[in-house]
């Protein structure tokens, strides 16, 4: 069991800034996120898109903001537990115990939930029969490339992931690239390659159409596509790869006994504590009168929450408000001389 002052759930911008606000107050923290990297929605949904409303930063991308935040919290050497999802929370006197899907256990007086809209998961195919093939013949990502050799592969999607894998897997498998419209969206170089590969007969492109059914019992035998003109086509298929992006799922958070409304957690706007003492919610996932889902609002929320975290983690010490410009203690914590 890992002991810390605060367990932060979610490594988006607000979760990262939580490390800072706790750190300058002398509190330790660890941070858990279901994604394989820090940044949350900033890195997963709009790494290259500009953000214009971070105070004093006229323009930056999601990726730049994440990088800067990581740089800002570097002095605190915080441990990140990525690719990991919190499954269970339970009370232990004044503390909370957190368990993850990788069987890690943490104990702390405070939990800060900076979970955005929940954890990211691949958007799955809606067909009823899709479930039984999942992870055997139907995949939402490519982990072990060996499984995709010398097969008939149907790739669904019109974006970069679908295009990149179509090119890569066409080296050793028969590829049908299937999309609901004629237009694909990808890097210019990728689009040129796709066209070239189609001409050379290395990739078959099927558009505009959608998946009608997956045929097979123990394994996939074929799929049926329905074209916009009403025609259907059956295609021999061993493996389906589907790239319809990511969705956000609230997941286990809904089962922790917190007061919720419409997928958000209710908090007070004084210290952003939930109905459970020592559990705080900040950023997009919290809800209070006047709430705005802005990164800058999340920064404010976590600054206030960290004060209450201090009081709970150091019940015998007096909290003293300090400025980073003038506090020698804070400057030492930041490694400044």
């Amino acid at each position, binding site marked *: 069991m890992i002991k810390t002052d605060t367990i932060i759930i979610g490594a988006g911008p607000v979760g990262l800034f939580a490390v800072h606000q706790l750190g300058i107050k002398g509190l330790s923290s660890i941070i858990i996120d279901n994604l394989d990297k820090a940044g949350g929605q900033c890195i997963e949904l709009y790494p290259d898109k500009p953000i214009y409303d971070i105070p004093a930063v006229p323009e930056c991308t999601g990726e730049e903001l994440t990088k800067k935040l990581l740089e800002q919290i570097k002095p605190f050497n915080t441990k990140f537990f990525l690719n990991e999802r919190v499954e269970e929370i339970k009370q232990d006197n004044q503390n909370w115990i957190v368990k993850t899907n990788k069987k890690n256990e943490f104990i702390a007086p405070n939990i800060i939930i900076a979970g955005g*809209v929940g954890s990211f998961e691949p958007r799955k195919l809606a067909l009823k029969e899709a479930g039984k093939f999942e992870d055997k013949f139907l995949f939402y990502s490519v982990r072990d490339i060996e499984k995709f050799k010398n097969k008939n592969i149907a790739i669904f999607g019109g974006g970069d992931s679908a295009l990149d894998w179509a090119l890569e897997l066409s080296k050793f498998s028969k590829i049908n690239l299937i999309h609901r*419209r004629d237009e694909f969206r990808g890097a210019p170089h990728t689009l040129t390659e796709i066209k070239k590969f189609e001409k050379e007969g290395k990739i078959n492109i099927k558009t505009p159409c959608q998946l009608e059914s997956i045929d097979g019992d123990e394994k996939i035998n074929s799929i049926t596509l329905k074209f916009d003109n009403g025609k259907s086509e059956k295609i021999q298929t061993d493996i389906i790869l589907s790239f319809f*992006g990511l969705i*956000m799922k609230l997941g286990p958070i809904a089962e922790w006994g917190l007061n919720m409304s419409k997928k958000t957690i209710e908090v007070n706007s004084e210290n952003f504590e939930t109905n459970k003492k020592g559990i705080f919610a900040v950023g997009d996932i919290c809800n209070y009168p006047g709430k705005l*889902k802005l990164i800058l609002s999340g920064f404010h929320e976590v600054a206030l929450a960290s004060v209450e975290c201090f009081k709970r983690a150091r019940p015998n010490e007096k909290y003293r408000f300090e400025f980073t410009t003038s506090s020698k203690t804070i400057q030492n914590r930041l490694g400044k001389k």
Partner: protein
Amino acid sequence: MPKITYQDSKGNSKTVEVESGLTVMEGAIQNDIPEIDADCGGSMACATCHVYVEEKWLSKLIKAEDAEVDMIDMAYEPKKNSRLSCQLVISDELDGMTVTTPAKQS
């Protein structure tokens, strides 16, 4: 105020007044319309406010930009009349429009 009708996938419909200048998505959230999740809050990043727009209104809407069409690619059962309701700004011209929600948003 313009009236917008939200019809769910089971055929139930609810007509509400929505202030001009708000989006069809915001009108749904304010009026507790089911089947419109709007997880990303209107930044064209999630496709969970996907609706089908009644044909005759399509031409009255501002054309979808690339980012919206790309996001609709990700939506559940996209059709020719698919739009993201967060991109549909309500005006008097849209008074009486009906949008239908798909069976699922994710």
